[in-house]
């Protein structure tokens, strides 16, 4: 029979250059498969040896190429199409099915089609003048890593000065871009993809601030979801404060250089506010939501979603979870999580779990997205680690997923009293695993909640407080939003 396969299959899967084209030897299995449901016609299950011989890649001796027969009932291409549609957890579990499946899933050329998961961690020095970047790989025992592990593609580009890490999201990294040397004036921002080696410059929002003026504090977040759009958003919160001084019966904004002219007893008020600025790579523009100073309130009515900004509260730490295309971060020490959309609008305020017990916690906790749900990880003063999951996003119902004492977790006695001696740096986006840096020996470990397994991932060169530990999920698709490519 004339087979019409070859051309059509190659049309669909252009990346499959490395896979052998369907050969005559595959025809019998396919034809047999069609009638495979008729038991008496079913071919005997191929033994691994037989399977190997019938699907040897045209590379000849098979020593260089993996020997595969990933399925007797479907062509490999179709199997890849199926695996591309299951969640990452299912794909990686399926590595255990057979050697052929493991090889298929680990094949560097096919991996791009499959769902991505946590690949490893970037370690990025916080110190502006040091700028070291390292990468530690969690997956894949073999094969070259496509990810540029020290961001050479970016750092070696002409015109790139100092890069201060801000945030990462779904395969992209965000940096504040500054002058190469002191005083490190802010030039703008850089968004890059270490996997595709693309990057883009984002202009600064407004003119540069003179050095002598107090710099507003900036909190930069990146929102990017390649399954929704190839464009990204920068959501920036800037914290400013003013002194209002009494001048002719009115409170007016005092200037910094008015310091010396203050007289004792002058009425004044210090107010702070947090404004939000959003950059869209699609429009190439910044938009602002700035509140009038007169709107500033002294207390925060939790029902007023934007109230936290008007009170000058700020995101409490670097950690931020992206869920449903919204940023989730903890606000100041209020024990509240703000859910902010890509336009910078606060859509929800979610109180952290069991507010009553917060007295025993070291704040702030850690928020993470894992397996499609928001998680909150708290550390008690006695070192106990608790992981909560938001089961009902709308009902705001937290459920305690797991709790473990210090000694159970680390298998050693605690050296400090009640000071924080370890830091949660990530939760696996697709599994019940928490990554922790042990302050006493700078080791990065993974803790698996379900089987309580602890593995050592590596050792930091400096203290945990000196380095950003950035979990990284690669993004293989090239984005038109990142116009520069190495």
């Amino acid at each position, binding site marked *: *029979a004339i087979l019409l396969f070859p051309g059509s299959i190659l049309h*669909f899967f252009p990346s499959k250059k490395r896979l052998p084209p369907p050969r005559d030897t595959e025809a019998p299995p396919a034809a047999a498969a069609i009638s495979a449901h008729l038991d008496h016609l079913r071919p005997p299950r191929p033994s*691994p040896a037989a399977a190997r011989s019938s699907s040897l890649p045209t590379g000849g001796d098979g020593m260089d190429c993996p020997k595969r027969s990933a399925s007797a009932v479907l062509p490999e291409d179709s199997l890849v199409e199926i695996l*591309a549609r*299951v969640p*990452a957890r299912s794909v990686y579990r399926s590595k*255990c099915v057979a050697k052929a499946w493991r090889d298929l899933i680990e094949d560097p050329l096919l991996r791009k089609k499959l769902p991505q998961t946590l690949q490893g961690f970037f370690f990025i020095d916080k110190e502006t003048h040091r700028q070291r970047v390292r990468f530690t790989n969690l997956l894949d025992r073999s094969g070259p890593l496509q990810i540029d592990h020290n961001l050479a593609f970016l750092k070696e580009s002409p015109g790139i000065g100092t890069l201060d890490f801000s945030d990462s999201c779904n395969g992209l990294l965000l940096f504040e871009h500054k002058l190469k040397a002191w005083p490190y004036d802010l030039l703008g921002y850089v968004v890059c993809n270490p996997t595709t080696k693309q990057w883009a410059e984002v202009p600064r929002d407004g003119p540069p601030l003179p050095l002598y003026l107090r710099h507003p504090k900036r909190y930069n977040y990146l929102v990017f979801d390649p399954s929704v759009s190839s464009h990204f958003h920068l959501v920036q919160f800037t914290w400013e404060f003013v002194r209002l001084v009494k001048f002719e019966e009115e409170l007016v904004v005092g200037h910094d250089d008015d310091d010396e002219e203050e007289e004792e007893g002058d009425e004044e008020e210090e107010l702070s506010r947090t404004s939000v600025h959003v950059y869209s790579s699609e429009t190439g523009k910044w938009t602002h939501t700035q509140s009038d100073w007169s709107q500033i309130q002294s207390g925060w009515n939790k029902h007023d979603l934007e109230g936290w900004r008007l009170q000058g509260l700020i995101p409490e730490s670097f950690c931020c979870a992206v869920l449903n295309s919204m940023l989730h971060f903890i606000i100041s020490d209020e024990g509240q999580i703000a859910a902010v959309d890509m336009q910078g609008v606060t859509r929800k305020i979610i109180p952290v779990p069991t507010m009553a017990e917060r007295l025993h916690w070291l704040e702030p906790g850690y928020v993470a997205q894992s397996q499609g749900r928001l998680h909150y990880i708290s550390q008690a003063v006695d070192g106990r680690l608790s992981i909560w999951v938001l089961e009902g996003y709308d009902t705001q119902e937290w459920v305690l997923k797991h709790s473990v004492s210090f000694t159970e977790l680390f298998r050693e006695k605690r050296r400090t009293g009640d000071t924080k001696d370890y830091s949660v740096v990530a939760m696996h986006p697709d599994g019940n*695993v928490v990554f922790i840096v042990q302050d006493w020996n700078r080791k990065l470990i993974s803790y*698996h909640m379900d089987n309580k397994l602890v593995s050592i991932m590596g050792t930091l060169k400096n203290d945990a407080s000196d380095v950003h530990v950035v979990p990284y999920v690669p993004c293989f698709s090239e984005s038109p939003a990142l116009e520069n490519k190495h």
Partner: protein
Amino acid sequence: MAATPADASSSSSEAVVGGEKSNKMITLISSDGESFEATEEAAKMSVTIKHMIEDGCADDGIPLPNVPAKILSMVIEYCNKHAADADDTNKHVADPADADEDDDNNNNNASAGEKEDLKSFDASLVAVDQATLFDIILAANFLSIKGLLDLACQKVADDIKDKSVEEVREIFKIENDFTKEEEEAVRKENAWAFNE
């Protein structure tokens, strides 16, 4: 300009003029010798068949030695149902470099009600046993019908995503060629993906 119906004498001509589609029927012959008729428009949802028609090989019916009658009738049902929005879909199927799946769903031609109708049709088409589902995938692969391939692969994906490793082996008829130690090592490496 006068609208010209498909010229019967040039049987493999494409009678597409400014949106007009030919009503010419194409005969498709299953592996077990059964003949099925489909409109050229529906048949062309298969890129394989489309090329055959364009190359003039379709005159005496197209033999499909890898597709049994039961499956072929389902495939034709799919093509008939989806041929209405084939305008946009075909363009994308013909251009394999364009992998934008969003456009497949971007039916400017179908109203919301029609879309719902299509969705439930699709769902019932693939609500079949595993073996038939695999057969549909094989046929859609062979015939290059992207929409049907996507649909069937997604269904299998949904079916297996929560299955255990052993259950997956049974479904795909795979023998476990790991030693106990090897399997344990892979399991440990990917512990995050397991619940135990």
